[in-house]
């Protein structure tokens, strides 16, 4: 062999670099700067109703748009004011607190470049970072990590991405190695899935329908004695399944935070939460959406506390594939729409703001007379975070991470 040293393979380095070399897993430049940033992406699958989450209570057309389902300042319960124009869903006191202390920002009337109404394709565009669905099997967060590696600012030995859940979200899939963690808790089929299945059975198989109906009735009785209609709007009659959903969200997000907080742990991660497709009985003020937002708010608390010291260098981006219709539909829900909100939280954030180029809610101001018109390209937000938080070069962002996005300028000033 002579004097030629054996060059360790990438795999050996991954296996071999244990706690002893933990320092080597931190980005070089970041270390030089004394920074060690973390980025967690949470994908809300099913398309979040941005107007049900963050209500434009100052818009003169708001009440007429949503009628008695509109969130209002003197509602029951009252919404949580953010500024003179926007107010937060009452299910999210943690987010409100973070916002007030400048550690949360909300982007409104935002969307990816996708303008159709398929969940699958919408999620594909959101997570792949491309303008059209189905064109790649890697996600923008993974490619961002890879770009950091090859560009040098991050030591390749440590650059793993974290995927939470038995399905690794597309956004972190790709050539950079991904470590995954699957929550112990099994998330039951969501209320929404059960309702859809029941609907399907009612059209195709009455016997299976009656069995499923009996199960759903039993579940609602078993979880909370005396509770009647699980679709009720009374929050004290929240379906018992939501307790499991809350626990699942908190466990999954809390665990992600613990991994990201480790000195030798991964620095970027992603996870998905399901259940946001609220066609029927959306219940923004008290009901399905209210419960889910509450569970998400609980997940925020779990992240904040489990991040520990690392919280101050953390940014969490909560995104969804598209929004929902501006108006309430015939079954007290909303259908697939376009513009929505994104939440940013974290100790590293320069927040306390709702960032929106508000399009208005008059029929002519809506997208296709249906949806909140998107005025902020979500890629601008994500590129801003990647550039200023992880220090990915702008050119790489435009060409590799979000290909073809040169004209979408990174949003500045998000992290401080």
């Amino acid at each position, binding site marked *: 062999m002579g004097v030629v040293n054996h060059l360790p393979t990438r795999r050996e380095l991954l296996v071999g670099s244990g706690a002893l070399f933990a320092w080597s897993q931190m980005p070089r430049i970041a270390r030089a700067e004394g920074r060690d940033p973390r980025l967690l992406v949470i994908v809300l699958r099913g398309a979040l109703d941005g107007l049900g989450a963050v209500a434009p209570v100052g818009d003169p057309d708001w009440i007429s748009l949503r009628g008695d389902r509109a969130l209002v300042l003197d509602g029951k319960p009252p919404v949580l004011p953010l500024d003179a124009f926007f107010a937060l869903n009452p299910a999210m006191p943690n987010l409100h607190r973070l916002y007030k202390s400048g550690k949360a920002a909300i982007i409104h009337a935002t969307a990816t470049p996708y303008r159709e109404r398929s969940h699958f394709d919408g*999620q594909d565009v959101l997570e792949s970072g491309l303008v059209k669905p189905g064109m790649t099997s890697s996600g923008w967060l993974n490619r961002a990590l890879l770009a950091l590696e090859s560009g040098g600012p991050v030591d390749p030995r440590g650059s793993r991405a974290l995927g939470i859940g038995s399905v690794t979200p597309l956004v972190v899939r790709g050539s950079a190695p991904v470590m995954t963690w699957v929550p112990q808790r099994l998330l039951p089929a969501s209320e929404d*899935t059960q309702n859809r299945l029941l609907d*399907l059975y009612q059209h195709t*198989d009455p016997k299976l329908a009656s069995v*499923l109906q009996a199960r759903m009735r039993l579940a609602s009785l078993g979880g909370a004695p005396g509770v009647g209609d699980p679709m009720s709007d009374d929050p004290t009659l929240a379906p018992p399944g939501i307790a499991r959903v809350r626990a699942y969200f908190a466990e999954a997000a809390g665990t992600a935070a613990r991994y990201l907080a480790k000195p030798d742990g991964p620095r970027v991660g992603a996870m998905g939460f*399901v259940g946001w497709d609220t066609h029927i009985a959306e219940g923004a003020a008290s009901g399905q959406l209210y419960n889910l937002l509450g569970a998400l708010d609980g997940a925020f608390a779990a992240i904040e506390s489990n991040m520990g010291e690392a919280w101050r260098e953390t940014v969490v981006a909560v995104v969804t594939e598209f929004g929902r219709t501006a108006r309430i539909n015939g079954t007290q829900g909303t259908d697939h729409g376009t513009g929505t909100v994104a939440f940013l939280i974290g100790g590293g954030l320069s927040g306390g703001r709702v960032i929106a180029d508000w399009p208005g809610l008059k029929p002519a101001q809506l997208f296709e007379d249906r949806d909140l018109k998107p005025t902020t390209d979500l890629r601008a937000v994500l590129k801003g975070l990647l550039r200023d938080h992880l220090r990915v070069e702008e050119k790489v962002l435009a060409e590799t991470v979000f290909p073809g996005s040169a004209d979408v300028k990174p949003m500045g000033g998000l992290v401080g």
Partner: protein
Amino acid sequence: MSSSAKAEAVIALHRFGMGPRPGSIAALGTDPRGALIAELDRPLVLNAAASLPSSAKAYRTVADANARRAARAKQAQQQAKKQQVAATPTMSEDQTQGQGADKDAAEMAAKQAADAIPDPGRPIYLQEAKVRTEAALSADIGFAERLVWFWSNHFCVSANKIRSMSGAYEREAVRANALGRFVDLLLAVEGHPAMLFYLDNLGSMGANSIAGINRSRGLNENIAREIMELHTLGVRTGYTQDDVISFANVLTGWTLVPPGDNPEHGGEFTFNPRLHEPGGQTVLGKRYEQEDVEQGRAVLRDLAANPATATHVATKLARHFVADEPPPVLIEQMAKTFRDTEGDLKQVAIAMVSSDEAWREPTSKLKRPSEWGVGVVRATGITTVDPVRFTGGLELLGEALWRPSAPKGYPDDEASWIDGVGRRLDIANNFAESVAATADPQAIIEDVFGSEIAPEVKQAVGRAESRQQALALLFMSADFQRR
């Protein structure tokens, strides 16, 4: 491929096979019936079977572990007692209590020592489950595999009692004869140590046998009754309690070689004349004068040839494959084939799929959990399983592999399974989550079902909020659960 050929291929795969796999509908071509029949000509071998122990070997392995375990336990117990004696030089006031505690400690030490030797039965069971399930997952159609499953359930044993042997039993006795003659299948299963063990015949002895004269134990009627009631004639077909007793006497001596006595053949079938009731016996009006194992074989041959058996078997087969209430015409066609061919099971299966009646029934049968589970996995193109998860899933759904609660086996009617559909949703949801990254619900509808699926299902899948939800809805659809 015409849409009617496609529709018939879908029925062929669901009703008679293990469910469609990617490309399987096209592979069936224009003659699904012919394809089903052609599959019966291929040898029913398990590729991975060579790596599995025979039932006798499995039995010896477990017996050996049990013996070592007992020895280890005894040793530990004695040691614990010795130590206690040494540590208690004088008697104390609370002597009784102290002794009780000592006894507990000794027992605990014994148990711990025994537990240190793991039970080899579980890994054998899991390996058998894996090989069997993967055969079903990778079969082209799976008609022949379904017949193995059917006969295995018809002649069930329970792994609760004989875990290590249950897979080997199926391979050795059932699989080897599932497409042969019923009489050979019957002789193989009733003479298999697993069945003799399961239905309590190992120690059954005639009152006048050499062993019986000296012992208080005696005859066990269990296997004789179940053979007539469940395996051959069917319940209430004219046999009497006297027939059961006579037949039980006929079967005395059917046992296995004790593993301790014979390291080479322990666990294999043997006829032990010392247990056998001497003399002739009358079963169903016929006298059997043979003096040995041939007496039992003769009765079994006659039971196999009894017309009631033909009807019983034909009815069960038709109920399993075609409908909870199968068309009488179909049953009669199959029973007639059984009688005409002296119980040629391949011909009976061919008679079933050749009958228009078997194809005309609406797809109203609810798949059993095992059929549904394998069908769901097949649809994703996956051909390997984690046996711990798979058997665990089946257990949750109420159809634990090789572990029915009674010799009757698992039932075939909708009423027995429909209440478990809610549980299927949990399983479907979790499986959907685990495959959502690779399984495309639209592709399954197109490639696997050839679009032969209810438009409502297509719509629900298209509108689902995630791939996971789409897959869960698809797996739970009536198109996936009924056949």
